[in-house]
């Protein structure tokens, strides 16, 4: 497979579009947890119940289309190889949990903007992705998609407690709204350390790019709501919106100050990273993440020219272990991956010139 063709596979179509504040906010996601009223929840359901749900989706939604979410493909998780599962996780189309769940499936739209996880912790987990900062649009679209599913499904819903979920931390709206955000200047100036506790106090969580328990690789943070009961979806999204607006403002301010006060040091750091990416023969994933983040900052600030800023999103995905093995078409050891990672990055950068 050529690198270009491989990249086309790797980058979800929706990721190629640009969105508002795209230089700092990478993507917006809304996730809704839903369950069937009369079915036992997946954690204790038996195989027969789970297959029933799996079949229901196969019969009713395979190759169905709704709005721009066309030709939904039903992927049976247990038919996938280990590497294929990893690739879907790295594209954020499924959760790591789903790869281990019984009779699990995912319904994915052609543009990979919608993915419905089936038999995860809840029967149904709908996820919608949008490029850039588009919380309001994302919520509106998620509601429409949810209504469309509800035409055929009796949701577990209680007048007082809202949407009933397997875990008490999701009950109510069943919604997790999150934003993926690149904050190199706030990290460099250590300002982020003061901001995270403040965000936590507002009931929002700051995590690394691959969700719970992951560190903020490459200065990319994921910010999402923790509370699901007591506030409406619109209010939660509004609060998240104002937090992210503040963060974007602060990040821009920190970038400006860096350029004004330590421009030569900043340039040095950016060009060193660029050089290392262009010439390395071995590259570990955490180093790659940091270097790519620096180069992206350089592109955003106009210090590095003639390279598209999409490169960060692309390389972050391409250099993940699953994708590297998918590209090599075999299982690789950690050190083999580091060599292939370095090669891929070098080739990707030459494609630009």
């Amino acid at each position, binding site marked *: 497979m050529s690198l270009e063709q491989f990249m086309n596979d790797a980058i979800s179509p929706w990721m190629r579009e640009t969105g508002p504040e795209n230089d700092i906010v990478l993507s917006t996601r809304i996730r809704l947890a839903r369950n069937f009223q009369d079915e036992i929840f997946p954690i204790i359901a038996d195989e027969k119940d789970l297959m029933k749900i799996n079949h229901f989706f196969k019969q009713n939604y395979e190759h169905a289309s709704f709005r721009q979410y066309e030709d939904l493909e039903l992927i049976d998780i247990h038919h996938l190889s280990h590497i294929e599962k990893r690739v879907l996780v790295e594209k954020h189309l499924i959760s790591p949990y789903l790869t281990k769940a019984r009779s699990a499936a995912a319904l994915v739209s052609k543009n990979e903007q919608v993915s419905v996880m089936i038999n995860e912790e809840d029967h149904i987990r709908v996820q919608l992705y949008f490029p850039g900062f588009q919380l309001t649009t994302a919520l509106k679209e998620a509601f429409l998609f*949810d209504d469309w599913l509800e035409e055929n499904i009796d949701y577990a819903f209680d007048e007082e407690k809202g949407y009933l979920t397997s875990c*008490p931390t999701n009950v*109510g709206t069943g919604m997790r709204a999150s934003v993926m955000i690149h904050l190199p200047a706030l990290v460099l100036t250590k300002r982020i350390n003061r901001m995270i506790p403040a965000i936590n106090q507002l009931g929002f969580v700051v995590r690394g790019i691959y969700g719970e328990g992951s560190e903020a690789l490459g200065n990319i943070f994921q910010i999402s709501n923790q509370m699901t009961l007591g506030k409406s979806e619109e209010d939660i999204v509004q609060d998240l919106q104002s937090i992210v607006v503040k963060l974007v403002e602060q990040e821009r301010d920190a970038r400006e100050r860096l350029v004004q006060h330590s421009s030569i040091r900043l340039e040095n750091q950016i060009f060193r990273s660029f050089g290392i990416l262009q010439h390395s023969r071995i590259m570990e994933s955490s180093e790659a993440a940091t270097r790519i983040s620096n180069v992206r900052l350089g592109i955003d600030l106009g210090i590095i020219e003639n390279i598209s800023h999409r490169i960060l999103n692309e390389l972050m995905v391409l250099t993940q272990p699953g994708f590297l093995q998918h590209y090599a078409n075999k299982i690789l050891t950690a050190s083999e991956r580091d060599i292939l990672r370095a090669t891929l990055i070098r080739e990707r950068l030459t494609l630009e010139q």
Partner: protein
Amino acid sequence: MECNECKKRPATLHFTQIINGQKTEIQVCELCAKKKGYMNNSEESYSLHDLLTGLFNFSSSQIELQNDDLFAQIEELECSKCKMTFNDFQRIGKFGCANCYDAFKVKLDSIFRRVHSGNTKHHGKIPKRKGGKLHTKKELELYRIELQQLIEQEEFEQAAIVRDKIRKLEHKKEDGRS
């Protein structure tokens, strides 16, 4: 596999006992293990899982140390649909089905309050198809609040319009019922 002792809960602990060369295998649940002294309470280690479930389990150590009567009382809470007990729920931290919310109702608000900053009531989306009646109810609530405000502000003309809207909705509701 069910517990050898109570024959009710699933066995989670498996012991092999060898007395005078005679091997016996014992499968019991945690509760019976404690009652029968297979497990020593004081030597229990505190695992990460305990820490997590501790979030929902406001007084796990307290409950476990109290007498059998209380055990019996708490155990009575069992979901009739999926057979999950409140104890199971506290251990796993997850509900087994939608009906569990009803079955454990009396115990849940304190848990929700802890997890959701003091909230116990949903204030968000209502399913479009299934929540038909609820939509009318919510709409009526909003109109009544509006009406009250208009009356306080002495905007009687506006208030009359809102009052008519309420009447119309109430009629619709009754028609739907008959």
